[in-house]
């Protein structure tokens, strides 16, 4: 049973990766967008840390160091959250029907698509980390910390990608999915601590940020970047992400195994 799942997931993932690496524009944009954030935002905000009060809020004297985990999480979010579009296109082009009439276990469809997203995003993150390093960002926890950051990003991407795929089981047009996804992502980012420190927010926004899953991914990653191995932060982030993943995979299993899908 497990070998059937592994085999099927592998082929779904294989196809997604083949497609990804054949779309040059998509690759360039996936890499270019986070770099734009880093270089542009980083430069724009660099003066911020000259202000001692702001520097204290950020907890660092290099805004880029503060920003890098935020950019990573945002890239993981955008990378994952449009994953559902591929399912909608598969349905429209009849490829989903082809998978559904084959003995492929249905749950391996989201598993394969999420595996592909995790691989794409990890590649993207490695490049972000390298560029950040080149721009003078030194992580407090060094290379081991950076590797743990990759794990957090992957866990976050499967949550976002999973929600998107679950939505796509019910939504039949890409336009609608785009609208729903945009409606969800913007508030998620701006009410989190990805770009601005929680301490700089008005108190009501602080409350929103406290319940925002994005914050729980940014928190441990930022600890790793700016402070060191702060275990309570790491465990809290890990716990929330694992719980969220469990919920999302349960939802996906239910959607893919129990509903019609076409």
């Amino acid at each position: 049973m497990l070998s059937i799942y592994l085999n099927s997931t592998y082929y779904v993932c294989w196809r997604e990766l083949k497609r990804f690496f054949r779309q040059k524009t998509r690759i360039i944009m996936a890499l270019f967008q986070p770099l734009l954030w880093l270089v542009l935002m980083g430069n724009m905000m660099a003066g911020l840390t000259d202000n001692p009060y702001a520097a204290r809020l950020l907890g660092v004297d290099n805004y880029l160091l503060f920003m890098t985990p935020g950019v990573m999480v945002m890239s993981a979010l955008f990378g994952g959250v449009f994953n559902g579009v591929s399912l909608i296109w598969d349905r429209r082009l009849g490829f989903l029907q082809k998978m559904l009439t084959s003995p492929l276990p249905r749950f391996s469809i989201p598993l394969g698509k999420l595996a592909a997203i995790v691989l794409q995003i990890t590649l993207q993150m490695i490049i972000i980390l390298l560029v950040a390093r080149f721009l003078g960002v030194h992580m407090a926890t060094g290379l081991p910390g950076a590797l743990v950051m990759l794990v957090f990003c992957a866990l976050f991407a499967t949550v976002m990608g999973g929600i998107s795929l679950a939505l796509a089981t019910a939504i039949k047009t890409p336009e609608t999915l785009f609208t729903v996804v945009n409606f969800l992502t913007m508030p998620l980012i701006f009410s989190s601590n990805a770009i601005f420190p929680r301490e700089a927010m008005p108190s009501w926004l602080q409350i929103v940020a406290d319940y925002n899953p994005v914050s729980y991914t940014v928190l441990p990653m930022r600890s790793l970047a700016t402070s060191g191995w702060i275990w309570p932060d790491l465990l809290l982030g890990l716990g929330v992400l694992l719980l969220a993943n469990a919920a999302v995979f349960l939802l996906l299993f239910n959607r893919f195994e129990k509903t019609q899908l076409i």
Partner: protein
Amino acid sequence: MGNNPEINKKIQVEVENLSKTFPGGIRAVDEVSFRVYEGEIFGFLGPNGAGKSTIMMILTTLLKPSSGKAFINGINVSANPQQVRMNIGYVSQELSVDDMLTGRENLWLQGGFYGIPAEERKARIAEVLHLVGLEERKNSKVETYSGGMKKRLDIAAGLLHRPRILFLDEPTLGLDIQTRSEIWRYISGLRQKEGMTIFLTTHYMEEADRICDRIGIIDHGRLLTVESPSNLKKEMGGDLIRFTLNSEMGDAQTERALERLRSIPAIRKIVEVDGGKGEYSALTASGEETLPLFFAALQETGSSVGRVTLKTPSLDDVFLSYTGRDLREEKVHKDQGLQERFTRRRLQS
């Protein structure tokens, strides 16, 4: 073709009182029962929206029936879908090959879905590529293929796991005439070479006539008859007189004229072609003998005829006699729309 001795009577598909009602109350399939035998090419013929594809989607485990039962190779489709999937190949109406992969990669992927071991898979890929004549283009991306080539690749993918029964939903939809007959050749060849059971849907009369052993005529979700093309035509017997009446005649006089024509014993049946256009089709044992009676009858009622043609029935006419509607290639859809608009207009005025 109808009494093909190669067809033994082992049942491959059995459908009993199958119905499907979609949310919103649309009854797409209405109490349909039929059987398909091993080694047979069985075709569903009907206009767009008749319910052909819905039945096929139920048989291929994509949709659940609202009521009734369906068995593939003795396996209940709703109870054991996973087992059914091992036995069937399905080529959907849409071109469901991945454009961004090469032909070979598409087949490799398909083989992966069915868990065919790598060595065996390579051999089978070579085999099906040969069968559909795509060996030379196997390493080109599918987006560079022509429509016919894509369809052939799609069919090849459906064959890779050697299904006992192959479902082809409108295999030639949207293809030009040349490509269409090319696909027909491949389908007929498949049955000859592989002895495979093939179940297809079509709304091309010619397609049903040329390649099917038996045809099920389906309209508004109901299966009207299942017969071999030749028997269907034989059943029609004799000739058809197709005619229009003088357009200046009022409804009452038209009705009177038709009434009088129906009373001629040699005329078995008169149906209106594409309601609203005023064209009729009369079925008779012998056209030459009936035609003088036909004109005499019209003269008697003081009616005049617009245009008359005498012809031997085609499957088109068979379809017409069963459904009261003409099935001419893709026009059906438009005609239906027009007909509805006419009815609405008539109701409004």
